Each structure stands twice: as C-alpha cells, then as structure tokens.
C-alpha cells in the first residue's frame, strides 16, 4: 500500500522490520520448547534470545542469493547470534510455512485488534450523530425520489447498527485467523512433537490448526478479508449518503471543510465531497482483495506457493486501506455539517406530494373505496406535478369534482411531517443501548 493511505500503527504491523521481530519471537519460543523437552541443548537458548532481529536490508542481501526469504532470514539472524553456532538449532523440525503461517496469524490478530478499535470509534460517532439528529426532519428518498418524511438520525442509525454488526463480525473472524501451525513439511509432525506446537501457540495466544498441510487452509483468512470488505462497504454507504446530500441542488449535508482547504484549482467557489469520494475509491480496493485471497483456498496437493505472492499484497493492502477508511469515515461523521433548515425546505419541494400515502389512508378510513380514493389522490398528485399547485389544493379540487367530502382537521394531521416519525422511539431506544 502506498504511504498516502497508511496510518502509522497499521503500517508498523505490516512492516518488514516487525515481521522479522515476530519471526524471531516464534523461532525463539519453538527453540525453548525443544530445550525444555530435551530435543536441543538448553545452552542454545540464551544466545538466540539475545540476538537482535536482522534488519530487512541484511535479509534482502542474502535473499538476493538464496531466492528464499526464510533461509535468508535465518542466516541473517544467525549472523547476529553470538556464538553463531548457537543458532544451529533454530528452526529445528520446522518447515518455512510453520514460521510464516504462525507469524502471519500474529500479524492478522494485531491488525484485527486495531481495526476493532476503529470500528468501535466509528460506531460511537455514528450513534452520537444519529441521536443528535433524531428530530431533524428530512425527506426520505427511494430511487432518488422523495418518498415520505423521515428524520436524518434515522438514516444514520442504520449506518451505526451496520458498523456495530461489522465489529461483531470482526470478533468472530478473529477466531478464524488466530490459528497457527507447527507441524512440519506436510503437517504430519514428522520431525516435531505436537506438544511443541500446543505450547508455543498457547504462549502466543493462538490456537493450533485442527489439521494442516504444509500450510493452514486459507478459509479463515478469506473470511477475514470478506469482513474487511463489508466494513469498507459500510464506510462507503456513509460516504455515498454524504456525496448525495452535498450535491448543489440538495445541499443538506457538507463534509468538514478545513481552514485553507481548496476545492478546485480552477473554480474557487467549490467545496467538493473529496473525503467521501476517497472513501468510495478505497472501498473498491478493499473489496478487490476478497477474490484473490479466496483463491488461496484451492492449492495443489499439500500446498503450492501461488497464495503467497497474493497475500503479500492483498492482506496488508486490505488491512491498511480498511484502517484508513475507518479513520476517514469517523472524521467525516464527527465533522459532518447538517443543514436542518435546508432539509426542512427540501421536504416541501414537492408541494406536499410526500403526504399522498397518508391522505390515501385517510380517505379509505373515511369510507371511500380504495379504488376511488386512489383515483382522487393520483389525479390531484398529477395536477401538482404538472402545475406546482400545492397538493392540498389540488386534492380539494379533485375531491369536490367527485363529490367526496374532506375532513380538514384530519388532513391537517396527514400533512404534519412529525406524524410520520412518531413510531421511531423504539429504534432510537435500541440505538441508545448500542455499545
């Protein structure tokens, strides 16, 4: 991932230097477990434990010759070990993927813990914004067309619960990726005692894979990638709502616009929803990682290495972009400008047509047949569409033509926008409970 979209903590999780730290940690614990069991000399442990992890540059220099990253790492680390021969027992009984998959599980859990905190922060921001706007009337739109009165907080509540579900999914997905293996070249424990695996993985806070080949089956990682794609998509849903709401003709919402910020090089008046568009763009990047990662599930026999190159790109990119998206979306929500007056004005843009459903029910309740009531309301609505005359007036005219009396007091109620959102109390009560 390019640095532009990388936040420091998540960047560190996926850095080469950190990867080698984790490799050293795993190898050291395995060596200690062997030493406890008597399979390797106990005096090999202290020098290895004291040896600093090799630098990425040192590993790269050796890898240029060996063409094998783990062998290069082991050589470079041995160069840091005093005496060097103490490193002879490092990696004892292991295959490269024992190290790679176990360390990858640690990186994935670290990344997940950061993402969970960000999901929680975004959920909290959405919840707070929704509760603050539980009474802010705005029109509900379907197909982009005005439908019925609603409140802005209701729309945001939908996002808040969606993000809370994403966070819960991430908790479940974490269990699927907190899995390592130390079972040798084809997972048969040919040269390593299963007790070493259970000890070391417990010390790392991981679970041993129930079964493994040379690698851990990629279904857990693929599920994790799917959850990240869902997170990204929910972020994009928030951003999309802002982009639509910031269109000049609608003008109900506006992204935070910083002091000194510029919208356009040519048009000084512009305030563009660039943050939301960035969110939309990066959500595509996260979703795009799902299929390649999933394709790491079918591998040749006990494994081939086709998944490896994919994952080197896809997993950090998915995690780093999702992390950035969550941070950007949280900032978007926290600083979102809501024009309540404009929302109220837009509510009247159709001259009362958004009240047709309630008027229809009023006429039926007053004893008119549904067919007759529908004909009156539709005819009046068409008049309003064509002439811009308020719906209440065209309704009176059309009803009078058909000899249909109207109860003006009840129509007052049908034309009162607050009436449409009175039953949202339970939704907001559930939102208040959302933690």
């Amino acid at each position, binding site marked *: 991932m390019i640095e532009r979209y990388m936040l420091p903590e998540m960047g560190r999780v996926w850095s080469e230097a950190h990867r080698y730290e984790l490799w050293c*940690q795993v190898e050291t*614990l395995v060596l*200690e477990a062997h030493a406890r069991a008597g399979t390797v000399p106990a005096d090999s442990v202290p020098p290895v434990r004291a040896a600093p992890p090799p630098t990425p540059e040192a590993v790269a220099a050796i890898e240029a010759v060996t063409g094998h990253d783990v062998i290069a790492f082991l050589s470079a680390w041995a160069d840091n070990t005093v005496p060097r021969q103490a490193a002879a027992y490092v990696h004892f009984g292991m295959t490269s993927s024992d190290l790679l998959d176990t360390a990858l599980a640690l990186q994935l*859990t*670290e990344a997940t*813990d950061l993402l*969970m905190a960000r999901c929680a922060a975004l959920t909290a921001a959405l919840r707070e914004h929704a509760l603050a706007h539980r009474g802010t009337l705005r029109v509900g739109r379907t197909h982009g067309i005005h439908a019925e009165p609603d409140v802005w907080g209701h729309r945001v509540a939908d996002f808040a619960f969606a993000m809370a579900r994403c966070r819960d999914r991430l*908790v*479940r997905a*974490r*269990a*699927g990726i*907190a899995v390592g293996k130390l079972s040798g070249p084809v997972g048969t424990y040919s040269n390593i005692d299963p*007790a070493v695996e*259970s*000890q070391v*993985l*417990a*010390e*790392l*806070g*991981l*679970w041993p894979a129930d079964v493994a080949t040379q690698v851990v089956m990629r279904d857990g990682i693929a599920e994790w990638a799917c959850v990240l794609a869902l997170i990204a998509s929910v972020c994009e849903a928030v951003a999309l709502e802002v982009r639509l709401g910031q269109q000049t003709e609608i003008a109900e919402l506006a992204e935070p616009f910083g002091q000194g910020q510029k919208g356009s090089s040519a048009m000084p008046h512009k305030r563009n929803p660039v943050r939301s568009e960035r969110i939309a763009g990066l959500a595509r990047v996260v979703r795009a990682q799902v299929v390649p990662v999933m394709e790491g599930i079918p591998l040749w026999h006990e494994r081939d290495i086709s998944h490896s190159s994919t994952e080197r790109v896809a997993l950090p990119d998915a995690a780093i972009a999702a992390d950035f998206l969550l941070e950007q979306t949280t900032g978007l929500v926290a600083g979102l400008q809501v024009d309540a007056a404009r929302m109220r004005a837009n509510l009247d843009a159709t001259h009362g047509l958004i009240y047709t459903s309630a008027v229809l029910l009023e006429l039926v309740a007053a004893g008119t047949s549904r067919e007759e009531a529908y004909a009156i309301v539709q005819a009046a609505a068409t008049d309003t569409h064509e002439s811009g005359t308020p719906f209440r007036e065209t309704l009176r005219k059309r009803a009078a033509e058909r000899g249909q009396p109207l109860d003006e007091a009840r129509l007052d109620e049908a034309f009162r926008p607050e009436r449409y959102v009175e039953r949202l109390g339970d939704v907001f009560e559930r939102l208040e409970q959302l*933690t």
Partner: protein
Amino acid sequence: MSALRHVYSGKVRELYETDDGVLLLVATDRISAFDHVLETEIPDKGKILTQLSLWWFDRLADVVPNHLVDAPVPAEFAGRAMACRRLAMVPVECVARGYLAGSALADYRRGGSVCGVTLPPGLTEGDRLPRPVFTPATKAPRGEHDQNIPASVVAERAGADVAAELERITLAVYRAGAELAERRGIIVADTKIELGFDSDGTLRLADEVLTPDSSRFWPADQWAPGRSQRSLDKQYVRDWLTSPEAGWDRNGPEPPPPLPQPVVEQTRLTYVRAYASITGLTWG
C-alpha cells in the same frame, strides 16, 4: 527486606505481612476443583494469574483504584506476588454476570430471578443476559458456599451509598473486562471482585481481577447456549476427575487422586493461552 509474617492461607494463595505493614499476596501453583485443593500443582499458574491481575489493574486504573503499593517483592515470590496495602474488606462478594451460569442458573430455575433481579422468561443455560447484572453474595467461611443475596440486603448491611458504589464498580469492571476479552475471542460469563476501604475511606479493588480463577472464561467461538459451556480454566481437571480413568467419586469421602502429566500440561496451557489471548503479550 524486612521480615515476613505469614498471615493467612487461602485455597490457592498465601498472605504475608512485612514489618512495614505491607501485605504480600502470593499466588501458589495450587489448583482447586469440586471444593478440594488438589495435591498436584499446575506449574506457572501462580505467576500467570498474578501477571494477568497486574495487567488488568493497570487497564482498570481509570475505572477503580486498586490495592497495589510500590514495594519490593522477595526473590522467592518473584512474578507471583503483589505488594498491597491493608484494606478493610467489604464483607460482600461482588459478582457481575453477563451470562446465565452457576448459582445464578440454579436461582433462575427456581424462581426466575437472581439476587432480586427478575430476568426474562425462557432463558437457558449459558444464555447472554439482556444486560449485565450485579449479583452479590455473602462471604461464606472456608468450606461453605457463598449465598446469593439481593442488593437490598447489601444496602441494609453496608449502607445504601456503599451498596450503590459496589454495584457501580463491579459492573464497570465487568463491562470493561468483558468488552476487551470478547474482542480477543473470550467471553467473560461472570466475574467476582473484592473491594475494600483504605485508610482514607476510598474503595479499592483488591485481590485478583478478571482471572480464570475469579471468572468464568468461555471460548467465544465454542459458545452455545443450552448446555454447560467449555471453560478456559479447569475444564481438563474437572473432565478428568469425573472420568472413569480417575476412578474417583466426587461425592465420596476420599480426596481427589493426583493429576496425570498430560492433564497438568493441558491445564497449564489453558492458563497460558488465556493470558496471552487477553493481554496480547507472549507468555515466557
């Protein structure tokens, strides 16, 4: 280092006092099951529970002050002792529950409520409660079981203000702990904390906190209401003691037999994994 005076032996812990009036709470590797202290010890258990408690005390510092003081720990107890101030302990077991299990399940089955808190009908063993509840209990003498009591009884005994504070702190500790642990794949079904007043009258968290011995930890991915849950602590010990292999009658007069090595090792790993999973730190 001043001289140590042995003050008290608990089931699995020892309490000492220095000449300076500092208490040393030392966790042993002893393990108890079915109200017996077993003759076999679990290596590292004392250290793991102490380190986990210390980690939580630090995490919970914003929620409630604790009993720790900055004082040296003798080398023989390194890693498994906490230097603490003396507190006037509140004579109530402060329990918070987020799930239905143990004595709460028994109470619920009898009368639909726990400690005076009415729960929704139709709950089954291991179900998540609508919200965490405070279920205090009396501190029973050693060898007897604690009795659940309504919060109103706590208010009568300790005063309404203190009772409210106990409830607030207990639920806050539970919530903070359960939320963090759940993210790491562990359900904290319930937890028991100990609180006491210091000389300034401040309530402080004491003893151990959010450990497998003071709480029910369940692996979240194996949680399935309607049966007894696998727990991340003494499950291997309980399973083995009740297996035909152990040949032990838990209702009989005999003490439990010694644990075989695989059971000891699996149990140790369970504690290690709980520590590493919750803290995100490597054990060892």
